[in-house]
């Protein structure tokens, strides 16, 4: 696998705030690479540097060996960038926006239609509608079509699924898988930890620092302890009880269950009976495979210490 993106010692500040601190990573050719982290982690700053839009205070990124600062002119035609905030012309129609982007990159809709077809055909019935009047999901599809129309080698997608419902998110990731099959390298950021599983590799990012980089599977296996899910219908009482029972460690609510690790030599059955004594009879404790969010929480807590 040859390398598409190399980042070395990237640091960036806004006044006193450090947005990125000594960030380094490399992305392989045709890789689907995800940056997973909450708002304020530094994802947007990183992506804007990669898209040649801001100059880093320290360090550098190269795409296909080209420097984002020195070689920005050459790079821009090879990058498709979708910013986090909807940035198309709201007072142009769907078709006019797409045509505009094709023209400034010296191409036409017709020439690269095959590439955008699976995405664009879903909004094509509304091509005469103003972009500002589209629903969230349709705006997202138009923005992706516009980022793709010049057939870039790299797609840089900044939080394309934020605020989008669970169904549209699933569809969007299916589209990305299709674009990867076309040979495009994709870097994408998201605050939804479950979407990490759709990437070839992920970087967990928080407060301007990368906490870890690997395949989603290896990231999950990097969780340092055995993890258990505890269930009882009284979820809030269960959480409070687990906090007060020393057998259970670092309880964290996860949907219908509370995830805990157990102190040394403690069996799931022992925790079940301790919960029964705390008037939570019928609690079930089961070993589970950690998710990305479990690992993220563990790494965040380690950073804090």
């Amino acid at each position, binding site marked *: 696998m040859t390398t598409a993106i190399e980042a070395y010692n990237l640091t960036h500040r806004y006044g006193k705030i450090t947005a990125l601190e000594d960030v380094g990573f490399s992305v392989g050719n045709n890789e689907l690479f995800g940056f997973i982290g909450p708002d*304020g982690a530094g994802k947007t700053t990183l992506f804007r540097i990669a898209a040649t839009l801001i100059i880093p205070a320290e360090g550098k990124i190269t795409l296909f060996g080209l420097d984002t600062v020195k070689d920005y002119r050459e790079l821009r035609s090879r990058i498709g960038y979708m910013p986090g905030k909807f940035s198309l012309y709201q007072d142009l129609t769907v078709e006019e926006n797409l045509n505009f982007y094709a023209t400034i990159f010296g191409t036409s809709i017709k020439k690269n239609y095959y590439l955008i077809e699976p995405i664009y055909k879903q909004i094509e019935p509304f091509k005469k509608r103003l972009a500002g009047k589209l629903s969230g999901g349709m705006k997202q599809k138009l923005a992706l079509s516009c980022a793709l129309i010049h057939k870039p080698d790299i797609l840089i997608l900044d939080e394309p699924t934020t*605020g989008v*419902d669970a169904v549209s998110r699933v569809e969007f990731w299916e589209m990305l898988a299709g674009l990867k099959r076309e040979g495009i390298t994709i870097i994408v950021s998201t605050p939804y930890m479950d979407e990490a599983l759709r990437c070839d590799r992920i970087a967990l990012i928080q407060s301007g620092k990368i906490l870890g980089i690997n395949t989603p599977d290896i990231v999950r296996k990097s969780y340092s302890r055995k993890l258990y899910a505890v269930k009882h219908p009284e*979820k809030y009482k269960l959480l409070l009880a687990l906090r007060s029972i020393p057998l259970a460690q670092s309880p964290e609510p996860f949907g*219908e269950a509370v995830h805990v690790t157990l102190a040394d030599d403690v069996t799931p059955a022992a925790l079940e009976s301790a919960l029964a004594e705390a008037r939570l009879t019928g609690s079930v404790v089961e070993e589970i495979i950690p998710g990305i969010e479990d690992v993220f929480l563990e790494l965040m807590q380690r950073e804090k210490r």
Partner: protein
Amino acid sequence: MTEQKVIEVKDLVKKFGSFVANDHLTFDVYKGEIFGFLGANGAGKTTAIRIFCGLSRLTSGKVTVAGIDAARSPEEIKKRIGYMSQRFSLYEDLTVSENIELYGGIYGMRMKEIITRTEQLLERLDFTQYRDMLIRSLPLGLRQKLAFAVAVFHDPEIVFLDEPTSGVDPITRRQFWEMIYETASHGITVFVTTHYMDEAEYCDRVTIMNEGKIVALDTPAALRQTFGTSSVEELFVKITRPKTETE
């Protein structure tokens, strides 16, 4: 949670021209309940919430919020509820304590009460060191926690939270939900929307809207059982898909 109803919705219809945004919604929400309101983008959630908050008029049907008829006295409803959205909740160029004072004042609280309760609030949130800081300079997670505390500062009967945890880090997201649990345990009803499907599981009951209609309403456990899915997420995808863009 008790059997006392704080929101009663009967045959709620809201039309924009010929477009039916809310198509005969009927449900009740109980005192102290954490009620999850889910649905795809464009399903009609925001339209309904705006009616419940007294911000928009219904076309037909009957909506009672905190005992007040939404068609007759929408202004009265505003006094009895709290509201927080992910987009705008606090004034960025005011300090933490100024924001609290402003909201307390808007809801007609007395200055003396505002002062005492501000102290209690800052201590409870562990926020005393941020008292004189501008909202702008606080990280998103802290802002969202404060925004929620401000939304319930005047002791409303119901608080409406519109995607309160969007983009918030996983630790703060959990702390936020604990604030929700605590608030509900004091008898305040929490009406919440989210795109995080794991958060749906934290609710007492969940309703799912699709194309203007309610397509599911029950406890998360009962919904999983009825639809034969292992999570609310799977169920959500199952019933809101296949979807065609027809707006």
